[in-house]
């Protein structure tokens, strides 16, 4: 099954996890403390986020810390910006078409 960043952000709990670990690396237990779900549920979300390469794990002593792969997050914004840019270009062209028509009418 294909995993990508869009799947990662499709779920509200995963979005909340992303927001949490964006500030600091956290252990699964510390993350789970913020939710009313089971640790298993949080683990599942973390697994999906890891598979989407949106978070990375780091072993520190006996604990595993999860942190956000900020570069991956930028990817989302990058293609959204490209889409926005496309609309901007398109509308600039329409502005020109409209002003040409208006001048002809005068």
């Amino acid at each position, binding site marked *: 099954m294909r995993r*990508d960043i*869009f*799947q990662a*952000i*499709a779920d*509200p709990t995963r*979005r*909340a996890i*992303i*927001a949490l670990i*964006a500030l600091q690396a956290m252990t699964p237990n510390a993350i789970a403390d913020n939710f009313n779900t089971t640790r298993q549920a949080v683990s599942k979300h973390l697994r999906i986020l890891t598979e989407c390469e949106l978070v990375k794990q780091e072993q520190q002593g006996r604990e595993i810390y999860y942190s956000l792969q*900020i570069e991956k*997050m*930028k990817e*989302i*914004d*990058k*293609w*959204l*910006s*490209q*889409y*926005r*840019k*496309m*609309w*901007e*270009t*398109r*509308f600039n*062209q*329409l*502005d*020109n*078409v*409209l*002003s040409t*028509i*208006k001048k002809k009418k005068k």
Partner: protein
Amino acid sequence: MNNLLFDFTVDKTAKQVYVTKEFNAELPLVWDAFTKQELLDQWWAPKPWASKTKSMSFKEGGRRFYAMVSPEGQEHWSIQDFTSINPTTNFKFVDAFTDKDEVINSAFPSSEWDLNFSEQNNTTTVKIIIKHKTLAALEQIMQMGFKEGFTMTLNELEILLQQLKK
């Protein structure tokens, strides 16, 4: 640049894209620019691409069959099926990618478009809502070749993170 509004927002949860734009022109003219093929072809494709409409029947149940043509002459064919038309305030269509023989390519998910037109003080506002089946579908559209250089700013990342926190 002018001071006419251009707003682009994405609701990732609802998989909807909202595009709002003001135009310095009266409503009937803007309506025509969105619904007449000879006008559409002048602006629909972002440069350096060109829009080439092969056929267009602007009525409910009608279809626009057109291509985005790359500078190298590569053609990406699409259709827009008009599902509802209320002149000159609203029209809706469903789009899909096709081959040059108008056969729908189901590998690319279609999206629903809802376009609203209103005028105030000689300024026409167009509000477009594009509903995608998945956000990944949007990514596919981008990969069709509309990529342009873009420099990510930390500010935008911050906004994105703020949105994610909500």
